[in-house]
Structure formats: C-alpha cells, structure tokens
C-alpha cells in the first residue's frame, strides 16, 4: 500500500491502546491494528476522525509516498 502512516506513534503519545483509540474513532481494535500495520488504507472519513482524535492534521498522520506510488 502506498500510504505511510504514523498512527502508532501518535497513539503512543496519547497513551492509548488500540481498543481505546478504536472506541474514540468509532471503529474496532482490529481496524486500528490493520491501519497501523499498513494492511488497510482508511476511508477519508475515518482518516479525518483519527486525525481529530490525535489532534493533528490528516497530512501529519498519513502520507502518500510519491516513490512508492511510482514503484507500484
């Protein structure tokens, strides 16, 4: 997946586990785990919700790598 994310890093800063972050964002613990591992790219709505929970911009949380996209 060409989407890089720093979700785990920001979650650690907030001292939340996956279940707690999922609960705040309205998704399951499993979804948070899939996003952190890079196995799932969230929808725009979910990305915005996660950014709001982490009190950061979406661009700080998720990044689309040009190099990765070209390789793909």
């Amino acid at each position, binding site marked *: 997946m060409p989407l890089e994310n720093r979700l785990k890093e920001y979650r650690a800063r907030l001292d939340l*586990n*996956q*279940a707690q972050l999922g609960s705040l964002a*309205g*998704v*399951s*613990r*499993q*979804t948070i*785990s*899939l*996003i952190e591992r890079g196995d*799932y790219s*969230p*929808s725009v709505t*979910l990305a915005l919700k996660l950014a709001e929970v982490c009190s950061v911009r979406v661009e700080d949380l998720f990044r689309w790598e040009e190099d990765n996209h070209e390789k793909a």
Partner: protein
Amino acid sequence: MKKRSSLMKMILLMAVGGLAGGCAGLGMMLGREKLVPLAQDLQLWMARSYLPLQLAATLLCGGAALYFFRRAKPLSGPETGEGDFERGEKLLFRSMTALSVLMLLSLTLFGCYGAGLFRLMEEEGSVWLLLLPPAVLLASVMLVVYGQVRQVRLTQLRNPEKRGNPLEMTFQKDWLASCDEAERYQIYRAGYHSYRLTNTALMVAWVAAVLLGMVFGTGLLPVLLVGALLGVHTLSYYWAASHDPKTGKRPEEERRTP
C-alpha cells in the same frame, strides 16, 4: 505484442487442458474393467468404515479445535497486551478452521457411507447400519455447532462491538452490520477470492462429472447438479455486482427514484 502473447498463452493453456482431459478420459475408458470394480470396492469399504473414520475425524479435528480454543481464551480479556491479543486471534482462527474441517469431513464421510449403503445392506443386512450412522452424523454436527457458538461468543468477548446470535437465522446479517469498514473490506476481499477459486473448482468438477458419467455410468444427475451450481454461482455474482443487494435495484433506477 503483449496482447498477442497473452492470447497465445491462453490458447496454449486451453489446448493443454483439453489434451489432459482427453487423455484422462481415454485412460479411464480403456481401464474401465479394472476401475469399476475398484471403485465399487472402495465405496463398500467407505460405507463399512464410516464409524471409525468419523470417530478419528472427530477426535483429531475436535481435539485440535478445543486445544487452540483453550489457548486463545486466556489471551482474550480487556487487559491483554497487544502482542498477546494478536496471538489469541491467530489461535482462535485455527480453532475455527479445525471445526470447519470437521464439519466438511463429517458430511463427506456420511455421503460416502450413503453411496455404499445399498451394497452394504445386501451383504450385511443389519438394521444398526441404518440407525447408527445418521445418529453419529447428527451428534458430530451438533458438536460442531456447539463449538462454533462458543467461538463466536469468545470473538464477541474480544470485540464487544460485534452483534448477532449464532443460533438465529439473521446472524450473518447482524454480524456484517456490526462490522466496520476495514472488517467489511476483509470480508469482501475474501469473498471475491473464494468466488474466483470456486469458479475454477466448479469447472474442474464439471469435467470430472462428465468423465465419470462416461466411464462409470453415473448418469445425468452429477452433470446437471454441477451445471446448476455453476449457473447459480456465476449469475448471482453478476446480479449482485449490478444491483443494490438491499433494495434489489440497479444504481440508475435508484437515482431516478425520488
């Protein structure tokens, strides 16, 4: 150039497949005299051995399911660390797989018993042959259902947002409704993968049904059955891809509706 080589590859694949099928059919026709008695003996042996085979399958698969379930349970509480939680998920998945395999084996073994039943009754004629195997199958199926209910309950303990009672007819619908976007994506991806694999498997089954009909005289039914399954499988996919499964309408019809 690339298109032409893809076309050539496809033609070559079809030719090889046709040749392999033709050779298999010819081989079976020529060896028919030996194959038919062998198949009949195998049928009789399967019918005779149903009970010990079913017992072995239940002990093996049921035992594996229970083993993995017991290891997953302590890793399912709300205070479990993330690494242990992931491990628990893998163990629970293995337990579910073991139970699914047991269900498949139970139905297949019973089907084989049924295929050889008439010949077995002619040779042995015991009434227990008619009563005991169905009771054993029923017990096996009930064991699988019980195990699956326990597994669903454990999954719901691990993921409290999951809804649905596994004993109700609406379980699958309720479960899907409680899944979020990533879980639905996983389900849909797995569904499509399964669709593609089943397509290939049904084509192979159709070829096998035709060859077996020619060699063993199994009649029209296997070919018609596989054909019907292939039809339902393919047409239901195309219908679902072009209609909203909830309303049954095409997207352009929904846009027109006020």
